[in-house]
């Protein structure tokens, strides 16, 4: 864990890169949520901008296709008045044989201040953070099956909005945990914020080995797993999983793990239903649930902008109080 701290925090304990929720302290996570709270209003103003990152250049470096993550990062950066460069590299330099490191150095030479990175290889964001020029901050927009920390923080933000406190909560994460970076980042964040009862639910083929070591309980039965829970986080089932023999059919999967109004009855009456999107209606979630007032899926999307503003501003050192020691003053 120290590995993550040493690379994510600067010598004053401030957020320098945001690569994973693992190993970050509770104070820091709460700080991110608090800052996001203060940014949440910006989107509804007449002028949807604050000048915190004016003159800074942020590069959206997406090696993997993404719509909502890249769009919300883009919006968040623009609302902070930064200049944004969106690079979709999925089909670009890498296919021309350029190494990741060379791509990075090329962008560094253009005097950028921050990289938002999405890559299909686990550890890619760590790799980039370890190899960029020291003035550049790196935010992980999702790396392989490892981490998606801003998604986790917007999930925490959404949970806090609805449930206020974390320590008494029961949270269930349902579906393809094996391939989910969201699940891993959610688990680390939930545990750090004090949630004792975190469950992961899915068939054994979609639950990674040794997940118990992260402090969660494993269920292969949806009903048992969501009984009495306050929060249900549904995960997206990738179609490719059927080819890889992880599940027999969409039909059978929906029958066992698809969330319907009926099955939802065993959860707490005020339980909220979340999903990182995009949703597969009729595969992991029934439309009636997705569109019901229990569902907070669209709120998650708008919270994503506030969270990403907070994280970007903190990593660029543009917020006073971006520190674990509140008495530390900033020069910005």
């Amino acid at each position, binding site marked *: 864990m120290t590995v993550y701290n040493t690379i994510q925090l600067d010598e004053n304990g401030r957020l320098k890169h945001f690569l994973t929720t693992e190993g970050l302290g509770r104070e820091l996570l709460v700080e991110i949520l608090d800052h996001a709270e203060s940014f949440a209003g910006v989107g509804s103003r007449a002028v949807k901008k604050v000048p915190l990152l004016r003159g800074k250049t942020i590069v959206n470096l997406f090696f993997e296709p993404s719509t909502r993550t890249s769009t919300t990062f883009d919006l968040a950066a623009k609302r902070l008045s930064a200049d944004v460069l969106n690079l979709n590299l999925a089909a670009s330099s890498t296919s021309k044989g350029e190494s990741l490191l060379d791509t990075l150095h090329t962008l560094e030479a253009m005097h950028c201040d921050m990289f938002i990175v999405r*890559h299909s290889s*686990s*550890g890619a964001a760590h790799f980039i953070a370890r190899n960029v020029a020291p003035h550049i901050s790196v935010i992980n927009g999702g790396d*392989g099956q*490892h*981490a998606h920390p801003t998604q986790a923080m917007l999930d925490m933000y959404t949970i806090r909005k609805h449930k206020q406190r974390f320590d008494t909560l029961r949270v269930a994460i349902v579906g393809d945990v094996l391939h989910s970076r969201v699940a891993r980042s959610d688990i680390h964040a939930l545990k750090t914020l004090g949630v004792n009862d975190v469950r992961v639910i899915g068939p054994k083929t979609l639950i990674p080995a040794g997940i118990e*070591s*992260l402090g969660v309980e494993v269920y292969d039965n949806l009903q048992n797993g969501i009984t009495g829970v306050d929060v249900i986080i549904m995960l997206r089932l990738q179609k490719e999983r059927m080819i890889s023999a992880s599940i027999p059919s969409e039909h059978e999967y929906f029958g066992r793990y698809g969330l319907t109004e009926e099955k939802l009855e065993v959860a707490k009456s005020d339980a909220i239903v979340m999903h990182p999107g995009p949703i597969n209606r009729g595969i992991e979630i029934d439309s009636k649930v997705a569109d019901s007032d229990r569902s907070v899926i669209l709120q998650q999307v708008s919270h994503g902008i506030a969270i990403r503003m907070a994280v970007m501003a903190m990593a660029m050192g543009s917020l006073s109080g971006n520190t674990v020691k509140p008495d530390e003053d900033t020069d910005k």
Partner: protein
Amino acid sequence: MKIQINNGRVIDPANIIDEAGPVCIEDGVIVSVMRIPKGFKPDQVIDARGRWVCPGIIDLSARFGEPGDESKATIASEAAAAASAGVTTVCCPPDTSPVIDTPAVVELIHQRATKSNKVRIYPIGALTQGLKGERLSEMYALRQAGCIGVSNANHPVINNEILRRTFEYAASTDLIVFIHPEDHHLRNHGVVNEGAISTRLGLPPIPETAETVAISTALLLIEQTGVKAHFCRLSTAKGVEMIARAKRVGLPVSADAGICHLYLTEQDVDGYNANCHIIPPLRRMEDREGLLQGLLAGTIDAVCSDHQPHNDDAKTAPFSLTRPGASTLEALLPLMLDLVDKDLLTPMQVFEKLAVNPAKILGLESGSLTAGSIADVIVVDPELSWTLTTSQMLSAGKNTPFINWELSGKVTHTFLNGQLVYNGTSS
């Protein structure tokens, strides 16, 4: 040329010798041990007081980059590293480019080895053409050209019918088969051991069964075909158990472990340490313990470096995209000597694992200090402490997981064929 090595502690497990005395070499051959022949007038005398005199190390697997990977390492660069590490014989696996599946490639390797003249290289021929797992290689021709065994290295033979035929044909060609036990489908593009670490890091996992299922298949086919087989780089405690059982019922099998697996575990991968990207993967503590137990019990006959030099580019990428393998030649002996310091092995046992047993597996007459045998001899200072740094490594591959480790024990002289090919005392 006559050489006399005086006063060293002679460690020669093949002849059950562990005591101080002289070793005399003449014209590339050991002429006498523990006594000086009448009228022996040495041209060179080495005072080995406080040091050990041992048979040269026989490394069952080291990749030297040639042919195909010359940008990373060459036989010349790696032979120099081998000599400095006390390794006098190495086997190189057939997964070069081109693959060692024709006598011409064997010839090329022999030529380069002869030119460097610092280490003996025995190529291992391909088990199937192009290592594709489809057609038998010309094993007889490879044997004639000098291959010491056959192997499909880390490439799968998916069809068990073909695997059976390769074993039968190898048996009838009197060649030992080197098996890298890995079930291709269970490996499933994995890069690290399946467990808490792979889950935390989100890296594609390799289950224990990738090894054990492959061992089980191979053992049944060995039993059926009678082929002499050597299992390379065991990584799981369960795999060790399976080999122990096979040996008990008398199957003609032997096994080795790579030095990394005796020292490192999956924990060392944490933080995406690409130098610990090794295949088979570093496993759990219990597995490492099982390997050490297997070493003591004799189930694991030999320890090899499994040396795989890479340049920075091959290791500078997100973990899954890096090339597997570690540069380990120069750490092999000191790490084995550390097992002596930990009272796990005696010095005699170290050279059983590094010389006597590998020679037996390969059917070589070397690996001992027997009078009349070829003089592949090393002198070791067991107490000399040093720190492994990339700048002093002779291997062109600096990809070692043991960087900045404090090691104890260094080779001071390496004789190949009675010729001094490394002298560490002058520097």
